[in-house]
């Protein structure tokens, strides 16, 4: 059993009913598990929502989290995808100070990260970037010297790669 605390990603499928997110978040709060990132969204089925939870945990805590999630009546499926081939994406909107003197330079830098410009104003640019957390972090590091005015991130959305993926 791995007693090191390391990042874990859980994919949780839940019934799409009011209060589900509260129940999931409350479980983490009550048991003193610290959430790093939590995202919720629709799936292809209107009655099912997809939650991605990222946290730091050792094997024991990870298995307790999974077991406790299963105790929630609205939870349909829990998968710890930390150690399986998995696509994990974070979306960020980053507003950077930019004027006519450095606008094209900033856009060139962002191009390297395949970030898209989604808004231009006389004093600022807004970039959209989707990718792994590392990639987003790298872009943020590069943009920081120009002056980041605002940033919003969605948190991680994850999905296991194979057909052994999570389904209800």
């Amino acid at each position: 059993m791995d007693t090191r605390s390391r990042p874990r990603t859980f994919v949780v499928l839940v019934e799409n009913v009011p209060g589900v997110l509260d129940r999931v978040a409350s479980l983490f709060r009550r048991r003193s598990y610290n959430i790093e990132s939590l995202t919720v969204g629709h799936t292809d089925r209107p009655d099912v929502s997809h939650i991605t939870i990222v946290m730091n945990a050792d094997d024991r805590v990870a298995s307790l989290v999974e077991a406790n999630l299963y105790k929630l009546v609205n939870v349909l499926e829990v998968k710890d995808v930390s150690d399986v081939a998995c696509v994990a994406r974070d979306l960020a909107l980053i507003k950077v100070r930019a004027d006519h003197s450095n606008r094209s330079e900033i856009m060139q830098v962002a191009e390297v990260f395949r970030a898209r410009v989604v808004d231009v104003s006389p004093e600022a640019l807004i970039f959209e970037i989707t990718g792994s957390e590392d990639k987003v972090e790298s872009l943020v590091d590069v943009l920081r010297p120009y002056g980041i005015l605002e940033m919003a991130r969605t948190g991680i959305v994850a999905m296991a790669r194979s057909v052994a993926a999570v389904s209800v």
Partner: protein
Amino acid sequence: MLRTGSQIVWDVLGQEGVGCVFGYPGGAILPIYDALLGSSIHHVLVRHEQGAAHMADGYARASGEVGVAMATSGPGATNLVTGIATAMLDSSSVVFITGQVSSRVIGTDAFQETDITGVTLPITKHNFLVTRTEDVGPTLRKAFHIARTGRPGPVLVDITKDAQQGTHDYEPDEAPVELPERSPRDTLTRDALDEAAGLLSSAKRPLILAGRGVMLGGATELLQDFVERTRIPVAMTLLGIGGFPATHALNLGMMGMHGEAWVNRAIQTADVLLAIGMRFDDRVTGDPTKFAPAAKKIHLEIDRSEINKVIRVDVPLVGDLRETLSQLAPRVGTTDLSPWHRFIEDLKGDTAVRDIQTLPDSGHLYAAHVISDLWNLTEGRALVVTDVGQHQMWEAQYYKHDYPRKLITSGGLGTMGFALPAALGAKFAKPEEEVWVIVGDGGFQMTAAELSTCVQENMKLNVAVINNGYLGMVRQWQEFFYDKRYAATPMSNPDFVKLADAHGLPGFRVEKRSEIAEAVSRARASRETAVIDFRVEKEDTVYPMVAPGKTIEDMIRRPVPVLE
């Protein structure tokens, strides 16, 4: 058939086999109470909603069925909270029905509005807010299903007033409730069973730790057969008492903070522990890092989230207890355990000389004597409901329960005020049983108003108040760990005999051991609830005791008496 939401509530309760409901009316649940008059279900009017919650819990624990409590919105609902948390920690199957303000005004801080599903989220197995009449029936049926299946627990159903008042074309649904399929990882594999059986078959010092799950899982007879064949001794948790006969030669008694010293020493010496339906509560383990260090641990549990929660186990077997034990038992071989039995017997001798029962009668009344005499006088057959504190531990030590579901006590939450209402609920479940309430003077005063409910319902209980004029267990901690600074633990009490009298009930006072038998006999002979005020030694102590944070073998023991 056109029915109102309120009528559907009583229809479903009838369909689920509910005989009586404990509750208290109010504005937001008035339609349901109005519909009560058209139902054959008996309703018990309590004096405080906390009483209703504990009664429904006591009913559930005594019967093995689902208990039901009802209250109005806001303060009615919040008064249930202590009882809900009590049921949650002891896995008791109770359905709570609360009225809620109309759906149009939800969220406006309307009169007597409380978000009770939000409040009870962490202390229910699940809860529901029902805002539409057509959802009342299916939701209530789901609630009963959730409360009684798997690991039992409390479920709350909050129903808005307009959903109660609305009408719906309703036909009773007889089909079994189906919840979406969920698939937790199965650990009850052949390999795991073989590994567990191998450990037990080759153990030299094996021990079974039995909890309340043995009774909840209907595995008492299986356990007894298994123990008698393998000769593995059994230690009980507080809530496990009754799951294996107390007077059986292989029952060691209670483990943990106030368990007997030989039991805790045996646990610390064991080489294999088989934990069945228990959850390694901190009152059981003491310092968990030093709990049974030499033992391989096997854990039979229905709730996977209990595995490795406190104590790391070597072989988890998750599933229905009866199923798990019936698969495990035949795989376990027998070995000669007589050296292990002799070792435990030797430990017992050391405890026996410290037993308060061996002390000469000093003229003072000791709670241990009261409990022990009560056990003898009722021939061990009473259904006993205790409150929380010193008397609870003395009950566990000195009343020898040979039968399941005959001790009802608030274990996990340790709820003062639990005993009297829970006993009343138990009496409704088992009217033929002789029910004894064993309660301290502090806890009795928290819910003594329910004596009035006993009178209104004409229910016969026997109430033994173990009265030492202190919050006894807290005083004991102050004695041991706070240098005898008795901050806020001395308690002045009303005259409990007169309190009984004020309710039109018989009351007796006992100040010497020689008076116990007569008072008990007069209480039993009374057709009404009777109260006995046992004036016990004020500064008596529950021995042995594991100090918080210590290992379970590091116990504070009663000194060996110097006999002249």
